[in-house]
């Protein structure tokens, strides 16, 4: 295609012989400009195609993970509710009223799970930094999660909050085995 351009653009009758050098120069410049324009056009087109590809990808992700921020603000409240229920005073534990609160907690959890939330089960498993964040080490089986300080959660297949864990340092275990 590029070869056709010069024949189309230059009008030989108009050109005087003495101007042939000027014309050649003008042609060279025009060619150069055309190439630069083509390069920029290709670049813009490539940018656009990439942008389109990525925005399609992002649209799909956005749908799936749109709730991440909301989930992250709700998780501490779920934590608090659990804390409240696990420390119910013994004299109150049998009250129907407490059972009601328990049901509310279960409902909240079920609603969030229906939106793709799932809890990371860490306790007793080998420590894995892809899912867990080590807060400290303590006596216990080496490299095994011995305590969960804060529950971790995934939204679909993405970790939105790693479990805060205590990892065993191998001390206790050796004593037991000996």
């Amino acid at each position, binding site marked *: 295609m590029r070869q056709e351009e010069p024949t189309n653009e230059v009008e030989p009758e108009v050109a005087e012989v003495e101007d042939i050098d000027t014309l050649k120069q003008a042609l060279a410049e025009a060619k150069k400009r055309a190439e630069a324009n083509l390069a920029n056009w290709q670049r813009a087109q490539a940018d656009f195609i990439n942008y389109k590809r990525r925005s399609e990808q992002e649209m799909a992700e956005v749908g799936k993970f749109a709730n991440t921020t909301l989930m992250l603000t709700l998780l501490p409240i779920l934590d608090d509710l659990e804390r409240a229920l696990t*420390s119910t005073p013994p004299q109150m534990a049998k009250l129907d009223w407490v059972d009601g609160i328990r049901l509310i907690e279960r409902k909240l959890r079920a609603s969030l799970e229906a939106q793709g939330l799932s809890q990371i089960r860490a306790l007793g498993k080998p420590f894995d930094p892809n899912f867990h964040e080590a807060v400290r080490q303590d006596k216990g089986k080496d490299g095994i999660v011995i305590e969960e300080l804060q529950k971790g959660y995934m939204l679909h297949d993405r*970790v939105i909050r790693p479990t805060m864990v205590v990892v065993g340092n191998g001390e206790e275990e050796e004593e037991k085995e000996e």
Partner: protein
Amino acid sequence: MAKVIGIDLGTTFSAVAVMEAGEPVIIPNAEGGRITPSVVAISKNGERLTGQVAKRQAITNSENTIFSIKRLMGRKFNEPTVEDDRKLLPFKITKAANGDAKVVMGDKEYSPPEISAMILQKLKMDAEAYLGQKVTEAVITVPAYFNDSQRQATKDAGKIAGLEVLRIINEPTAASLAYGLDKKVEETIAVYDLGGGTFDISILELGEGTFQVKSTNGDTHLGGDDFDQRIMDWLCNEFKKDQGIDLRQDRMALQRLKEAAEKAKGELSTIQQTEVNLPFITADASGPKHLSITLTRAKLEQLVMDLVEKSLGPCRQALADAEKTAAQIDEVVLVGGQTRMPLVQEKVQQLFGKEPNKGVNPDEVVAIGAAIQAGVLKGEVKDVLLLDVTPLTLGIETLGGVATPLIPRNTTIPTAKSQIFSTAADNQPSVEIHVLQGERPMATDNRTLGRFMLDGILPAPRGVPQIEVSFDIDANGIISVKAHDKGTGKEQKITITASSGLSKEEVERMQREAEAHAADDAKRREEVETRNAADTLAYTAEKTLREHKEKIPSDLNQEVESKVQAVRSTLQGTDINAIRQAMQELNEAMQKVGAAIYQQQPPPGGEAPPGGEPPPGKEGVEEGTVEGEFREV
């Protein structure tokens, strides 16, 4: 076309950005974060970890987790700063044969560039995943105070990671680029960088597009983390005063406090007070204890005032070293997350006597600047087609003097748009295309760009002819407007070159006016729309009477006729409520007409009037049919 990425290789965090369609964008990492911790580790089973994952396992594997490697880049083992760092850093630092400092990870020695390369490799991989193409070239930033061997070490790190480092640029220079300060002529710029753990101040001089560092200063152990610690300490003290329990002894409580302190700090940058609410934070024999404390911005500022003031000493020193007074500083640039705090901005403004540049995310501004530099090196920034936008809305005048927009303001040009319009009266022979520019809803308040007639329209009831109006703006802002009668094929056009004849001030004035008159304009537009609707209703009613004469009882016929007259006479006046009232009455009468026609018998399809008119007497007749019709001429 291969992309060049810009990398901010930071002490605690790194970020990567790239130019796309002439704009710098931050590339998120595989985990979805916009910044990546500068941490590398070898796990106990020999796996190499980088970034967030390496950070999460640091506590279990502290001797094999390397962070703050930037502090060791290009340094000799015997340098005093390295000796200091050896006391602070938990991993082992050794001496290489040439005297360089090295680190030990997983029983193997690594040079600092090798460790940095692992971070760069992660950023490179994330960038490749994002861009969908190989990345082989980069611009990397370093602190202004880095010496030649530190810069060389950074370059080496790039090479090891498989990146050709096109240029090493100073972090304050990158930040200035991100604010476009290189486009100014000659200036002196102060870059105030308060990050998570370090503080840097740099004075730069800009001349002929190049930046020269005049002086630098700072504090290697002052940053946002210190601010968080102050908040935590205060919360612990308050709780102890209140409940008598020291939370510092409770690791789990401390973890929650740390998160709450960071959150409160962030919130207080935009609001005046926040509640730190941590129920069941701990328990004693008497039962559970809750922490609920209100922290105001004023209190926070009191807690950290000395930290902020501590940063001002190095600023003054840097000014003195550069032989400048505060008044000689033309621009101030803020870098680092902690500069979001209003108190920091205020103190910086006080010291330099001018408002700092902000607006670019201070965590990302250095990477953004690096990407811009990368774009400049590739000729991308210069050559990229600068596409303009239309500063004001373009449209045409339609029935009742309404300005109907076709191309809204801020549309990127070149662009084209067309819409079908019709006539406003029966047998209307011509239409006038009145091309308008402006934001106001009424034609008379906008600027006339041009007008022309399209005639030879065949006699037809109003609303039947189809006139296609097309707008086309080329890259130079030249507008051509074409009207095309789909029935006859007749066409008229106009080309307007004066579209950009407005100065920036005029455009701004027109935009301001549109805002100022928004409420009035909406009212006027509603009036016109009511009038148009009333006119259409009267027209439809008359047409219905004509077409179904034999089916309508004569008393009803008379009633409708008188109500049509009532509508028409209110249209002569200016009382909009009277028009609405008359319309309401006519509508009710028309419903009776509809009922009368249907009672007789439903009209067979063949008898329906031509032109696809909606069945008469139905509700909703007044709406929709007028929109887009031309004013009668």
